């Protein structure tokens, strides 16, 4: 298919996405020009959290696995960056502190943790899965606050941000980090989209719809669940690493169960089961927090009320409004397959 043909198939939503990314790319220039550089780090943070939320979306929205301990992988990524930063020099070569090494290491660490937890957890029934992931999350939290080498209760500052290995390009500048985060955020979400429509994605979502039947069809169901759990954990770890760099600080607060709860709420708010759900939810959640905290110290309660409203009246979060354009499968998918089916009917395909 030619590129022109491809782009002519873009739906409204996809054009809106392109527009948003372009706007986001232009933001730092605007913000710096108007002396509002605060927004750069704010939007950066939004994108980072969106990655974490979307990783949870993979589990909750597409796999019906409600993990109440996802903050553990978020935090693991952050602490991994801290560990690498401390070890680079004495234990590890200096180049371990570049983003090309440190961040994949963080993903590896988080993914490995997810593997260990997942091996035990994915075989457990739905409601107990919530509790067992909560328990594991707490374990990691207590371990983190127990270790003085990582600053116990208070956490620890990160001496400096990761180096890029590219001369002239330094993450010390908020703007430069912003662009890296933007690229990663876009890539992660494109990857998510590809994943959920891929063969793996279809099988994994099938498991969420009817697990028993998938087994009876011949799929080793647990393997798919575990794979998704590890992938989600690894990307939460990436978000954690980015957060550590952004804040230049790593605190156990990232690991609290309340953080896990917030991630969960954000997924539902934004629309579980929609690729952009994580982004919508994070924008609203963090935006609300900013706005509300300017007006009242009791903004937690306001968010609480919002959540209750969402639970009782909401159908599918913000992305649910998008439902006219997006369904279980995108229109494009269906249109393409219809063409194929017509071809198949006439025997022309083969």
């Amino acid at each position: 298919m030619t590129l022109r043909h491809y782009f002519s198939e873009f739906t409204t939503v996809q054009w809106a996405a392109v527009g948003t990314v372009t706007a986001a790319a232009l933001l730092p220039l605007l913000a710096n020009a108007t002396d509002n550089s605060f927004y750069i780090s704010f939007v950066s943070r939004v994108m980072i959290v969106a990655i974490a939320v979307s990783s949870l979306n993979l589990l909750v929205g597409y796999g019906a696995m409600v993990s109440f301990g996802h903050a553990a992988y978020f935090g693991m990524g952050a602490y991994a960056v801290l560990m690498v930063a401390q070890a680079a020099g004495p234990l590890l070569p200096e180049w371990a502190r570049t983003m090309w090494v440190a961040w994949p290491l963080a993903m590896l660490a988080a993914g490995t943790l997810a593997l260990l937890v997942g091996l035990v957890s994915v075989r457990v029934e739905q409601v107990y899965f919530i509790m067992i992931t909560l328990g594991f999350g707490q374990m990691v939290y207590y371990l983190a606050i127990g270790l003085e080498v990582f600053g116990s209760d208070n956490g620890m500052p990160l001496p400096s941000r990761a180096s890029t290995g590219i001369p002239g390009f330094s993450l010390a500048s908020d703007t430069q980090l912003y662009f890296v985060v933007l690229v990663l955020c876009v890539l992660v979400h494109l990857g998510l989209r590809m994943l959920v429509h891929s063969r793996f994605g279809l099988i994994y979502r099938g498991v969420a719809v009817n697990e028993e039947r998938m087994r009876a069809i011949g799929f080793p169901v647990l393997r798919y669940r575990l794979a998704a759990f590890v992938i989600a954990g690894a990307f939460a770890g990436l978000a954690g690493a980015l957060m550590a760099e952004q804040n230049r600080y790593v605190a156990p607060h990232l690991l609290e169960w309340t953080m896990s709860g917030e991630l969960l709420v954000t997924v539902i708010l934004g629309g579980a089961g929609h690729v952009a759900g994580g982004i919508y939810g994070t924008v609203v959640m963090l935006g609300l927090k900013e706005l509300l905290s300017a007006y009242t110290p009791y903004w937690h309660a306001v968010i609480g009320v919002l959540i209750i409203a969402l639970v009782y009246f909401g159908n599918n979060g913000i992305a649910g409004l998008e439902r006219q354009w997006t369904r279980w499968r995108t229109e494009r998918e269906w249109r393409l397959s219809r063409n194929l089916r017509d071809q198949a009917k006439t025997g022309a395909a083969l």
Partner: protein
Amino acid sequence: MTILVLEQLLNGLQLGLMLFMLAAGLTLIFGIMDFVNLAHGTLYMVGGFMAVVFVSLTGSYLAALPLAVVATAIVGALLDRLLLHRLYGHNHLRQVLATFALILIFNDLFKFIFGPQTLMLEVPAALASPVHIWGKFHYSAYRLMVIGVGVAVALLLGLLLTRTRIGMWIRAGASDREMARAMGVNIERTFTLVFALGAALCGLAGALLGPLLSVHVGMGESIIILAFVVVVIGGSGSVKGALLGALAVGMLDTLGRALLPQAMRQLWPGLSTDSLAPALAAILTYALMVAVLFWRPQGLFKTS
């Protein structure tokens, strides 16, 4: 040394019984209404604060205690009737979200009413001095009372469930909702009753532990997770399981916290165990839950 161990054993018993009060309500709510109530810790907090309020109103802790329990039960009943009953038996995710929201709301509400500072609840003068148990072993009279109340509650709860008509309704609702409804049991009223009962137990625990652990916003958050661990270990819907699980967790947690640092210092002298040991003790508890879930996913005493 023995005195230390004895003291910790009694402390563990006390924690276990208080955990039981939280877990019993939680397990009944989970077993009967199929409802995951994260806000259970909030009800515990309500109990603590109500005790403070009533002590300042009546001047007497012993008078404030039953009042605090009743007040918390009322709060629980209201939450059930006005908000939560629609989520029973449904999507667990929604329940988790809604009760998580309640935690946020109540925390801010109480911060607004009482301020963010920790409130002190005085141990009643009559129980302030330690009691001589045997030999050189003294133990806080107040803690003994707490243990006593805990044991009494456990016995009463057992009697309530097995010997009374209300208890029969509750157990009927637990095993088969539709059948119970068909037999004329008013299910909605039973649910409210169960929720209020759970709330009352939380309130009692909160009021009892207030003088020991101090009353502050968010005091329920650490203990609620422990209570969930107990419910998972004991099996949903099983009060007996909740008791055994609570005692096990209470002992494990207390003894772990007290003895583990010493044990670790023996093995690795020089290791700074101040912050690590409590962490490990806590981890032990979660490890226990994970082990139970793995080996027996339905808990030790799952009701059918």
